[in-house]
């Protein structure tokens, strides 16, 4: 077997073609943000997903106007009608922003153009948060318009039963939902797996938790120390009942269960997404 060495040059002085070494500047983070934002909108499926946020918010507003008796209409009626579908779609946005890279295998290109996976994934996370908050701002405005319109139609003053603090808690609950989606996405790196896991978390876990609480007194007494969902729902609740506030213990329970249900698996998932082989 011949073993002719082709190597002859030196490793220290890589020849660049017509360009002195070191003249290439690093990719700024803003550019990564812009490209990742563009990737969320530049396919039909992505565009429809984003459009569906607005469409659903508009439909929910109209639906509320039609279905809820005029005398019962308050700002809260609109916000909860819009908030429910938002709370489902926004996590899907978060999931797909990550998993589509692996599902469509565009990760191969993405991470050979930007080898620091952490920068790409932070950009995606940041964009998800921005999109979430913008969507909620739209929801708040649409709800307000609906509320004013309904009141004007009925010839009475509009009822503003959710203050800005309530809106902040409402936004927080939604952003946590997106965080759950993001966590499942980096953990599974698969669209179907993450979506199924999300619906299990979002629809099945609460049912099981309620059922167990119904038969198990100890669990019922301690549910807020265990079930993250119940604490997130309290954010909606506090926002909507006008309490506008959680007690220190309630915040603590939210933080503690959030640590277990969200922060720890998110950390594991991020480690996997940053290190796992991409093929």
């Amino acid at each position, binding site marked *: 077997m*011949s073993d002719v060495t082709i190597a002859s040059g030196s490793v220290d002085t890589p020849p660049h073609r017509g360009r002195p070494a070191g003249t290439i500047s690093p990719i700024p983070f803003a550019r990564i943000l812009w*490209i990742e934002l563009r990737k969320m909108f530049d396919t039909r499926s992505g565009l429809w997903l984003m459009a569906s946020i607005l469409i659903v918010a508009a439909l929910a507003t109209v639906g509320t106007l039609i279905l809820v008796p005029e005398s019962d209409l308050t700002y809260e009626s609109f916000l909860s009608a819009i908030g429910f579908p938002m709370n489902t779609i926004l996590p899907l946005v978060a999931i797909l922003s990550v998993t589509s890279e692996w599902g469509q295998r565009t990760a191969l290109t993405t991470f050979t153009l930007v080898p620091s996976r952490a920068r790409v994934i932070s950009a995606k996370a940041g964009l998800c948060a921005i999109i979430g908050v913008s969507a909620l701002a739209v929801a708040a405005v649409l709800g307000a318009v609906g509320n004013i319109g309904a009141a004007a139609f009925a010839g009475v003053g509009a009822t503003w039963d959710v203050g800005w603090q309530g809106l902040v808690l409402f936004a927080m609950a939604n952003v946590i939902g997106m965080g759950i989606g993001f966590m499942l996405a980096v953990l599974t790196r698969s669209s179907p797996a993450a979506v199924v896991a999300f619906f299990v978390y979002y629809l099945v876990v609460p049912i099981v938790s309620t059922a167990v609480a119904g038969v198990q007194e100890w669990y019922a007494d301690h549910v807020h120390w265990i079930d993250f969902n119940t604490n997130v729902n309290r954010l909606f609740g506090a926002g909507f009942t006008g309490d506008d506030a959680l007690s220190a213990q309630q915040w603590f329970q939210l933080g503690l269960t959030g640590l277990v249900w969200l922060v720890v698996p998110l950390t594991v998932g991020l480690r996997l997404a940053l290190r796992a*082989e991409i093929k």
Partner: protein
Amino acid sequence: MITVDGLTKRYGQLTAVDEVSFTAEPGRVMGFLGPNGAGKSTSMRMMVGLSEPTSGTAHILGRRFGELPNPGREVGVLLDASAQHGGRTGREILSLAAGTMGLPKAWGDAALERVSLTPEEARRRVGNYSLGMRQRLGIAVALIGDPDVLILDEPANGLDPAGIRWMRDLLRGFANDGGTVLLSSHLLHEIEVIADDILVIGNGRIVARGTKEQLLTEGGTLARSADPAALAAALRAAGHASKQASSGALHTEADAGTVGQVALATGVALTELRAADSTGLEEMFLALTDDSQRDGLRDETDTKTEGTAA
């Protein structure tokens, strides 16, 4: 320039890449040849930081891939032309790459032109592209940043013979401008047409390396003459064994010059004298392929990757 040193990847028991070392020089096109499952893609993934080596290092232009500030400007990479979102247009995929690298818009058009994709084709969604068109688009993405190095995994897959020649000319031009090219293939023929230097990998290990000439002329010399028996006797007398093929041609390890002199001295008229075909390399390669196909029976991945340039 690409410098790979002791690159190794183990998946549990399986050593997919085993102590691979080589240097790819500027101005040369290096072909990475090996049957399916030999470890070409795994090696390339490690070179570009998509997979962590078990041991060993890979440097591109003297740096690890992850240390390149804007890799697309220095290394054009195509690992799998099919790994694109089918819902994006070719143009959009190029724009995303150009945008990431911070390039002016016009560079996208130049790259499309270099790979002979028409503006009309670029406006179509890549879900509707043929494999050949995807390969061209993938090459355009690799070329758009005007890099110094190209790393291409099975880029000729899905190209017709004219496409393969086109690829040869493109890569030849790139290398002539001082670029370094590493491309893989599981087909000896493709590598023969395109590469200057050949690196043969089998079961994760480099089994042969050299310039194309060195490896291909290992096959010896082929001589056709009016009197093969007399020529064979004369060659034997001069200390060179030879074999007579069914066509009547003599096949010998002696070089063409020696055969010519012996023929002249013996007075046998030669009708054809040339370096034998790449029999040596081809036989070695066939043996490797047989080996790995036997292995392939217990490894589904091989069947899966076959024909998809994975």
